[in-house]
Structures are given as structure tokens and as C-alpha cells.
């Protein structure tokens, strides 16, 4: 961290203190997330391979490790098609807009105790608000590409994210009720030497985990881009680097929400020996491993079953959990 501080000091000389932090932070996050996407794409294909009795990509790099770089460079070199009948401006904007919210959310996750950037008093609320914006760009993509399959996929994604945003919020609320704050750093510090919140709030943890599976459009909730029904779902008409943007956004969203889950329930950067951010990474990759595992095991839920599962099961359970926590906290507090 001292190297960063020195770099920031020299930069502050040119552009002033605040701008330097902001610039350095943005570059750091963008670089890390780009690296993470490459790693996650490879991890998903290798894990899928091993789940399915095969070895996954082996040709590129030692033991297939550079496969995702080959994918990205190939996608860079692809011709970018814009179908004539699309709504051009909205069609071009959708891929850009899809991963801006996830980048903002990434900057709000506290990496380590003192030096980390994020010390927002209302961090959790901002995060939950921003994570609702990604569905806007999915709908824009689906609607503008003038393809009936895409419109179907877009409609489905809007309904799904609305239905699964609420359990995620309620699960987070029950944690906030215990920690008495919405500042993520204080939530983590509240878990410092007591037991982690995943044990205090097991129901909320499960709800949160199911919610982020649905929010990142991953099976068994991947109905917006259901391969076997809607051909390509909302990104059917996108090719080349634009399609890669959707790929990039999906995996970034996965990491960010997993990190949020780790911060809320698994005690973000707390952990012996290793520095803070490394612990946060280990925990979020554990959550991601379970996400990938679930994807390659379960078939897909039908659209209306998915909705009834959210409205009739998850949300009532979340509300009951909230009430129980309130009674307990009030009783003890």
C-alpha cells in the first residue's frame, strides 16, 4: 500500500489531492476487474469441464491458462455487425451502459480497514440502488435489437430482477439491523471478534445467495438468455466486442455481488495472517465457485415458476426473518 500512497502523492502534485485519489482508484478498479473477467471466464470453462468429466481448454498456454485471452483477442478482431432494423442509438448504448453500475458498486466495497477508499456512511443503500440499473441496459439491448427472441429475453429479465431485488435488499436489511449501520466498513468491523453474520443470520445468507444467483442471470435462473428456448436471449443480435461487453459485465457483476455477500456475511477483510484484500478475494471466489457449481448442475426454472418462487417463497421468508431479527435485537438491545 505504501507504493500506492507514494504514487498518489506525486500525482496529487499535478491534479490536486481529490482528483488523484479518484483517478488512481478508477484505474485500479478497472484494471483489476478486467483481469478478474479473464480469470473467471477461464475458471468457469475449466470448472465446467471438470464437472462434466472432461478437462476443458488445454491448448492455449500451459494447461489452457491463456484461453480467455485468445477469446478476448478473437472477439476484438471480429467484425461488429449492426443489423439495419435496430434502434441504432439505444443498440450502441446498451453494451456501454451495462457495466458502468457494476464498476461504481465495485468502488464501494471496502477492501481493508484503514486505507481503503470506501468509507461511505450509506454504502449499502447506494449499492442496492445501483445494482438495479443493470437491468435497464439489458432491456435496452433486448428491445433495440429488433429481434423477437431478444424482446422476450428483455421482458423476462426485467420481471426477474424486480422479483429478486427485494429478497436481496431484505436480507441485507436484516444484517444492517444487527450492525446498526449501513456503512459497510462498520458492518465488517462489527463482525471483528464476534462470530460472522453468516452464522448469526443463516436464513438471510441463503436468501442473499439465491438473490445474487438470479440477479447475475445464472442458472437455474438464467431465463433472460435461456439458450435452449430463446436462442441467445437479449444479446442474440450482438456480435464481436459488443457481445464481449455483455460477457464482461456478467462476470464483473458476479464478482462484485459475491464480494458484497462476503462483506455482509463472511466478514469482508477479516482473517488471520493474510492482508485484508486477499481475504476478501478468497471469500468472494468461494462464493463464485458455488455459483458456477450451481449453474452446471441444475436445469432451468420456467418463467412463471421462477416468479412464484420469488414472490411466494423468498419474500415472505425474508420479511419473517426481518421481524424475528427486530424482536431479538430489540429484546437484547
Amino acid at each position, binding site marked *: 500500500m505504501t507504493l500506492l500512497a507514494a504514487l498518489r502523492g506525486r500525482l496529487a502534485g499535478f491534479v490536486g489531492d481529490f482528483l488523484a485519489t479518484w483517478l488512481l482508484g478508477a484505474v485500479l478498479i478497472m484494471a483489476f476487474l478486467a483481469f478478474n473477467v479473464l480469470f473467471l471466464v477461464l475458471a468457469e*470453462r475449466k470448472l465446467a*469441464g471438470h464437472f*462434466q*468429466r*472432461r*478437462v*476443458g*481448454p*488445454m*491448448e*492455449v498456454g500451459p494447461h*489452457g491458462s491463456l*484461453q480467455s*485471452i*485468445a*477469446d478476448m*483477442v*478473437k472477439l476484438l*478482431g*471480429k*467484425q*461488429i*455487425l449492426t443489423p439495419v432494423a435496430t434502434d441504432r442509438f439505444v443498440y450502441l448504448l446498451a453494451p456501454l451502459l451495462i457495466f458502468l453500475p457494476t464498476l461504481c458498486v465495485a468502488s464501494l466495497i471496502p477492501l481493508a480497514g484503514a486505507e481503503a477508499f470506501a468509507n461511505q456512511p450509506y454504502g449499502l443503500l447506494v449499492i442496492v440502488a445501483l445494482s438495479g440499473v443493470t437491468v435497464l441496459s439489458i432491456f435496452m439491448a433486448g428491445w433495440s435489437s429488433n429481434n423477437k427472441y431478444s424482446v422476450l429475453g428483455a421482458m423476462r429479465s426485467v420481471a426477474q430482477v424486480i422479483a429478486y431485488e427485494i429478497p436481496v435488499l431484505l436480507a441485507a436489511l436484516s444484517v444492517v439491523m444487527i450492525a446498526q449501520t449501513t456503512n459497510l466498513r462498520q458492518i465488517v468491523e462489527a463482525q471483528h471478534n464476534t462470530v460472522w453474520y453468516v452464522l448469526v443470520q443463516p436464513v438471510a445468507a441463503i436468501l442473499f445467495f439465491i438473490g445474487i444467483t438470479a440477479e447475475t442471470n445464472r442458472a437455474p435462473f438464467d431465463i433472460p438468455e435461456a*439458450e435452449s428456448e430463446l*436462442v*441467445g436471449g437479449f*444479446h*442474440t*443480435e*450482438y*456480435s*464481436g466486442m459488443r*457481445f464481449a461487453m455483455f460477457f464482461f459485465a456478467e462476470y464483473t457483476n458476479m464478482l462484485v455481488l459475491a464480494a458484497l455477500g462476503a462483506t455482509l456475511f463472511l466478514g469482508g477483510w477479516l482473517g488471520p495472517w493474510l492482508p485484508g484484500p486477499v481475504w476478501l478475494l478468497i471469500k468472494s471466489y468461494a462464493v463464485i465457485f458455488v455459483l458456477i457449481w450451481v449453474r452446471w448442475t441444475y436445469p432451468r426454472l420456467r418463467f412463471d415458476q421462477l416468479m412464484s418462487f420469488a414472490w411466494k417463497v423468498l419474500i415472505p421468508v425474508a420479511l419473517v426473518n426481518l421481524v424475528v431479527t427486530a424482536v431479538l435485537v430489540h429484546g437484547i438491545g
Partner: protein
Amino acid sequence: MGVVVPAGRPSDQELERLAADAAPFVRLAMVEDVLNLCRANSLWPITFGLACCAIEMMATGMAKYDLARFGAEVFRPSPRQADLMILAGTISRKMAPVVQTLWDQMPEPKWSIAMGGCTISGGPFKYPGEYAIAEGAEKFMRVDVHVPGCPPRPEALLAGILTLEEKIKQGRRFGRTR
């Protein structure tokens, strides 16, 4: 001087002339090689089975013959995201215009493998007075690699894909650029 693109389907000579006009003035050999190397190692085929060869194509994607080792197991259903079309099975005359539409919908650096006798020359269904099939994919689209067999074994398709990868790495283009 803008490159004039004739309306309708350009003939071969015009395509050659267009390719010559549009050739980049500076050949960036290094970038070309890296691009071709990456393209060769991440060929995404389109899920497009026509008949019996489709089962052998699926068998190649499964655990025993494992197309994934060459980075080609991501079967994209939409032609927009695929860059390899494996023509697996008989192309009937009712299906030929659809295959052509799919081929035109795929973004440009695209290749095609004619798998099985039917897509190479009509195979077992070619006889005098035959009315139902298109005798080979060459009749209406460009084919880069032919994999003979009826159906070819999964190893033969793997060999076809590896031959295509060699061809991409050397950046050569055979056959009419239609």
C-alpha cells in the same frame, strides 16, 4: 475514391477486385499472426445440426472426444456470435436458402467445415434424377475444410478442425471468396 459496392450478390471477379482495393497499405504481419493465432484457438461453432452428422458433431463435443481442449466447445446458438459453421448433415433444397441466410448473418472472419458426404458432394443421396437435396455445400457457399465420411468419426472432425486451425494460422484463403 469510395469503394463502390455493386447491388445484389457480387460475382467473384468483383469480390477479388474489392479485396484488392481494400487491402491495407501497410501489412502488419505481427498483428495479423497474433490475431490469426487467437482466432484459430477460439473457434466458436454455431449449434447447427442438419442430420446424422450432427450426432457425431455432438459426440465430438462430449467428454470422450472433447472438442473443449481446442477451445471450440462454446456452441453459440446465434449466428452473430459464431465464427465457424460446421455443416453437419444433408442439405435439402428446402434448407439451402436458410443455410445461405445463416452464412450471410455470421460476422466476417468466418469459416465453414463441410462435414460428411452429403455436404461435400450429395453423398449417398446423389443419383440421376434426384430432386430433394443440394449436391454439396460448394454449390452456394464457400467451404474451407471438407471432412469426408458418412458420418465421419469424431476423430475425423477433430482432424478437420485442426486442419482449419493450421489454415487460419497461416492466414491463407482457398477457394472462391464468395
